[in-house]
């Protein structure tokens, strides 16, 4: 393969084992905090890890899935490449859910799996699986190493691919004999692969065309996504929004790129997003999509999505352009570059009357939905009021990690973020069980930030074993379980579309506080408004880990909602 490497390190070689070489590769790539679970086929590597504890901290999770989600949380909070290690066979297959999650949400991650000895490949050996075959559809790249000599080049390539362009997960499978074998090791980082163009070159014609359309627009609207955060383009994006005066809405993975309170931030698009940006998507004359991929949760029925508008798509991955929504102008490249390049061509403007439309619709949504969610008067606790209290107590500075379901939508809708990289959630794949390990990874990666995980009683039990990491590694993360004793989102759909036939959505839950107690985690359970405020205060004030269970209204529904197959214009407020 044609891979050129730039010499950024010493070229003198040292004889060492494949496992030791792996350690040096990881250190060279800045991976000083990794997650994993040992086993037979990866033992040589773990032996070397043990000898180099001063260079790399390895955190033992309680399931390999937990290792992938922790690596993801780490990557989302820091922007660095997350690393997860597993053994062969079931260890490797347990990584797949997290890898698929990282693939669809473009999270940079390198997974290293042990494999049986190369002479056993293909023989159905003990704990042998064709993990390369299994992970091919869910990885950006994967490769099996059978000779130690391959290690430096393949690892360099793996990190380069994981972090460059549109990030994604890479899996490297290493046979046991390659881990043992000795060879002459020298490392050089990779920044070029002939067949791989991570970032398209910026095209000045596209920039000029886009600027012209934007300047002439009467009712322009911006929808931004994770691309702004992945490209570290928050400043460029803010400057673009402020100069153009264009109302900007966000997808759930884009939220926090600009603060929630920014005057031009008009809220969330998508199935459970805010009323105004959804409805006005079908009223704007220019739709400027930046670092987002027109996921079906955002667009609803494509036949009735923004058909009246000129669509400008700022995008780094050419395969996303015209995939779901036809772009009139595609501005390819990293948004950090393209937004900086277009800014001088953008006229300083404000669209007061058009912006007022967003505010008017928000007022309607506030009366019909938001007010009752965050400041309820009825007896039972709502998810919204818990989220609101957490925001107040953390002053909008915390990283909020959500799992999947009703609480996720509520947690993100009512989030109040002041800084970027504040929202960590499973967007594209919607993996229940994501939040607990991801919050652990986020807290360990960004210890200076408060990290609060908001989880439903269903998702919590999918990866509850990762409490063991909080216990053993002493991670001061805050966990809030919003307990409605249901699989809430599915129950909502059963109520709305299946005549309230609650098939397998009732949950009989254990005593969660006793479980937290067993892991030595401070804990409290609340069911009333009087208890809630002080409990949240206590949790946030604590310097240790804390588990808070909140009993919420059992059959509350999340609105607004765009039912599947409906148009964004038909978003329901009740």
């Amino acid at each position, binding site marked *: 393969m*044609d891979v050129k490497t730039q010499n950024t390190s010493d070229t003198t070689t040292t004889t060492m084992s494949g496992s030791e070489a792996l350690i040096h590769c990881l250190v060279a790539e800045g991976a000083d905090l990794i997650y994993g679970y040992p086993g037979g086929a990866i033992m040589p590597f773990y032996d070397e890890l043990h000898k180099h504890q001063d260079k790399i901290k390895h955190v033992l999770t309680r399931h390999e899935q937990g290792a992938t989600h922790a690596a993801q949380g780490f990557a989302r909070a820091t922007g660095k490449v997350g690393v997860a290690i597993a053994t062969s066979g079931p260890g490797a297959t347990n990584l797949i859910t997290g890898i698929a999650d990282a693939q669809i949400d473009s999270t940079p991650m390198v997974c290293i799996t042990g494999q049986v000895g190369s002479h056993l490949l293909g023989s159905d050996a003990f704990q042998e699986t064709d993990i*390369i*075959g299994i992970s091919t559809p869910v990885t*950006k790249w994967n490769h099996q190493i059978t000779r130690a000599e391959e290690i430096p080049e393949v690892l360099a390539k793996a990190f380069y691919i994981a972090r460059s362009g549109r990030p994604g997960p890479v899996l490297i499978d290493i046979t046991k004999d390659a881990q043992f074998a000795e060879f002459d090791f020298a490392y050089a980082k990779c920044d070029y692969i002939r067949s791989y163009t991570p970032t398209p070159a910026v095209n000045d014609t596209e920039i000029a065309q886009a600027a012209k359309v934007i300047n002439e627009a009467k009712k322009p609207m911006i929808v931004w996504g994770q691309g702004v955060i992945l490209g570290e383009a928050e400043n460029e994006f803010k400057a673009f929004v402020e100069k153009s005066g264009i109302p900007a809405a966000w997808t759930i993975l884009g939220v926090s790129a600009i603060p929630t309170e920014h005057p031009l931030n008009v809220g969330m698009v998508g199935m459970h997003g805010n009323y105004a940006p959804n409805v006005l998507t079908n009223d704007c004359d220019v739709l400027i999509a930046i670092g987002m991929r027109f996921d079906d949760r955002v667009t609803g029925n494509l036949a009735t999505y923004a058909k009246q508008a000129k669509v400008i798509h700022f995008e780094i*991955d050419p*395969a996303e352009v015209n995939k779901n929504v036809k772009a009139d102008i595609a501005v390819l490249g990293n948004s950090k570059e393209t937004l900086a390049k277009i800014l001088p061509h953008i006229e300083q403007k404000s669209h007061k009357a058009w912006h007022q439309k967003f505010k008017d619709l928000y007022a309607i949504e506030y009366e019909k939905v938001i007010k009752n969610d965050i400041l309820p008067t009825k007896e039972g606790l709502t998810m919204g009021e818990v989220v609101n209290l957490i925001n107040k107590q953390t002053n909008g500075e915390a990283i909020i990690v959500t799992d999947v379901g009703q609480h996720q939508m509520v947690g993100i809708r009512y989030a109040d973020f002041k800084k970027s990289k504040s929202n960590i959630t499973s967007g594209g794949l919607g993996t229940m069980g994501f939040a607990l390990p991801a919050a652990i990874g986020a807290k360990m990666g960004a210890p200076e930030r408060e990290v609060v995980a908001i989880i439903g009683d269903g998702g919590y039990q999918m990866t509850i074993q990762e409490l063991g990491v909080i216990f053993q590694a002493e991670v001061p993360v805050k966990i809030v379980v919003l307990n409605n004793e249901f699989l809430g989102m599915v129950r909502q759909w059963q109520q709305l579309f299946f005549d309230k036939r609650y098939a397998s959505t009732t949950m009989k839950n254990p005593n969660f506080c006793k479980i937290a107690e067993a892991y030595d985690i401070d804990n409290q359970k609340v069911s009333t408004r009087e208890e809630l405020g002080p409990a949240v205060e206590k949790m946030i004030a604590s310097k240790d880990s804390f588990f808070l269970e909140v009993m919420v209204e059992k059959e509350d529904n999340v609105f607004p909602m765009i039912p599947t197959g409906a148009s964004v214009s038909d978003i329901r407020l009740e």
Partner: protein
Amino acid sequence: MSEVKTFTVNIYTENNIGLLNRISAIFQRRKINIESLSASESEIDDVFKFIIVVNVTEEQMAKIQGQIERQVEVIKAFYHTDEETIFTESALFKIKSNLLFEEPQIQNIIKESQARIVTVNKDFFVLEKAGRRSEIELVHRELKPFGIMQFTRSGRIAVTKTEMPISTLLQRIEESNEVAFGKSQA
């Protein structure tokens, strides 16, 4: 744009064992049947080529091209219609030898179709027919009543009428890399 056409897709790649799996998965996910598949070296040293034939709309083809090129080991993918390519397939027919002498009609079929006799022995002979699929199917239909022992047809191979600028593309990539990192390479 929304009419289903036959496209010949030329995919230039680095040699990579798993790449066929990745590429075929792109079609499989969208429930598109691969009509024909061929893999070989290309006109450039150490660059390899897949030739895949599918029946899809141009709109689908453009989306698939993007997803193929997104694979790390794929250098470039081009697609062309039948009108834009020169293509051929090949087929082998294995038939009992005595039929060659007992059935004069077979000799006529061989002569008219310009099929080539590849080998003859006392038990069987083998015919090769290269050309369009319709021509191969015609020979097959005509020989079938006499009994065909074995039949096999290759995938399509094709070259395009217009240039596929792979060499200039590779040169540009190499040059821009040298500019970025200077002439001294590791």
